């Protein structure tokens, strides 16, 4: 009887612990499965951003409402849109964005549940550089106890140094581990890193 109770409590504990962690190779597998789509989103975003800076956020799990950040020279406009209404296209037009290109990007993001995409500044010594940050939702990252997590992918312009554990290091100070929003970045490949985060930005 005692043995049976012990075994069942061990099984219960193990199942709780398993439910608290995401699949170990999630990012590697997810990236391998969706590499073409992710690279296409990154390329389209970079091209459109170069024409006129912006960032996109899906505010809700339904992926029908977005928060679009129009970045002008000295001011940011953050507007909220329902994608089923014409106001989004009208505002893109009014702010001189490539309407068709941005709408296509938003659809690509919707398809893969990419929640957030933006260009982010970072520094190597005193030198300013840019990276593309993208956060993706996935059912495999949800659990009842810990709530939802996001896979944050970071696309650097140049290959990054990394240590034996596959953690990206700071190019200007190789003793430091490079971070994004307080999270250590692990390597997907030389230029792409990831972190599993509780917040999408």
């Amino acid at each position, binding site marked *: 009887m005692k043995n049976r109770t012990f075994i069942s409590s061990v099984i219960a504990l193990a199942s709780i612990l398993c439910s608290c962690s995401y699949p170990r190779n999630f990012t590697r597998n997810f990236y391998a499965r969706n590499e073409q789509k992710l690279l296409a989103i990154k390329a389209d975003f970079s091209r459109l951003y170069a024409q006129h800076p912006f960032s996109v956020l899906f505010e809700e799990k339904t992926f029908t409402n977005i928060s679009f950040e129009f970045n002008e020279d*000295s*001011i940011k406009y*953050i507007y909220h849109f329902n994608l089923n209404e014409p106001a989004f296209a009208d505002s893109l037009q009014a702010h001189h964005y490539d309407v068709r290109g941005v709408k296509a990007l938003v659809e690509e993001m919707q398809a893969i549940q990419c929640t957030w995409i933006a260009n982010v500044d970072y520094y190597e010594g005193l030198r300013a550089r840019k990276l593309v940050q993208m956060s993706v939702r996935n059912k495999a990252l949800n659990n009842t106890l810990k709530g*939802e997590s996001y896979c944050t992918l970071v696309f650097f312009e140049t290959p990054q140094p990394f240590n034996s554990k596959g953690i990206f290091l700071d190019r200007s100070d190789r003793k430091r581990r*490079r971070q994004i929003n307080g999270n250590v970045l692990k390597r997907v490949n030389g230029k792409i890193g990831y972190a599993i985060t509780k917040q*999408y*930005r």
Partner: protein
Amino acid sequence: MMIATSKIKTVKIILFIAFLVFQPFTGRAVLPADTARKSTPEQALRYLNSIKDLQQSKWWPNVPPALLLHNLKTFTIEPFAFYEGKTTNFCAYSALTYIPLTYDPLGFARFMVELYRNGQANIGKNQLKPSKPVRMEAGLLRYKGSLDINPAGQMWFLTLADHFKGYLNVFNRRFQKGDENTFWASTNFAKFNRMLRRLFNGNVKARGADLFRPSIKDLPGYLAAHMQKGLVFLYLNNKKLYRKSHKQSMISTPTHYVLLTNIRKRTDGNIEFEYWDYGARTVQQLSPEFLKNIIYGVSVWTPRISK
């Protein structure tokens, strides 16, 4: 002909009066800037350019003098570019820095240079003398965006966080590495207003609290009216203003300070809300209910004008 002209005049007057009565309120800070201003950006730049012999400070070993002067000149030229850094709890210190950069850039530049040279300096009613761990850390903060290359900003933020304490800092009073992101650097509403009173020569009128929203009937109208009198700082719920996860939080608390730069009622009933934080001005269109829901504190700072 005469009758027609006078009729047109009457209609014009009626239209003008109607326009005055029915125009939607707008608020943009209209301050007695020239009379309240103690110095100009030009004076600050002249002072900073005159410094030729600034040696590496023994108090701030990780802040190079040339970079410090470069940062101070940038603050003077572009006060709106002042940036608190990503993931830090420096937003309160950053918001209030708009005051010295606008009203006394020369005084601020002198204070920073004195702080660099002597490891301590006076500002307002305070003598700021940062502790050694803070002085050692300034210049080393990384992965905070442009704050990485802004050791002068790091000095200022760390010094303020080290000097001013509120109840949120009770359990973490001594700086340790990484504390810029923790409760060590947090600012409750009373501490924010105390900093405004003690650091700068002005009057502070505050409404609201850390856990309860201010009871103001027409909040947008109130904010617009007070922007005519002084600088309006808002203490608000950042999780709602900048959503960072899909999770709906059960507890609503304010965590962020911004400077209100403009507020306007739109014809569709929404509020055009313009504020300054993270080194840029931002405009959002929000419903009056949402705005009321996120704002917990309103501090109005008006400069004391010397006769």
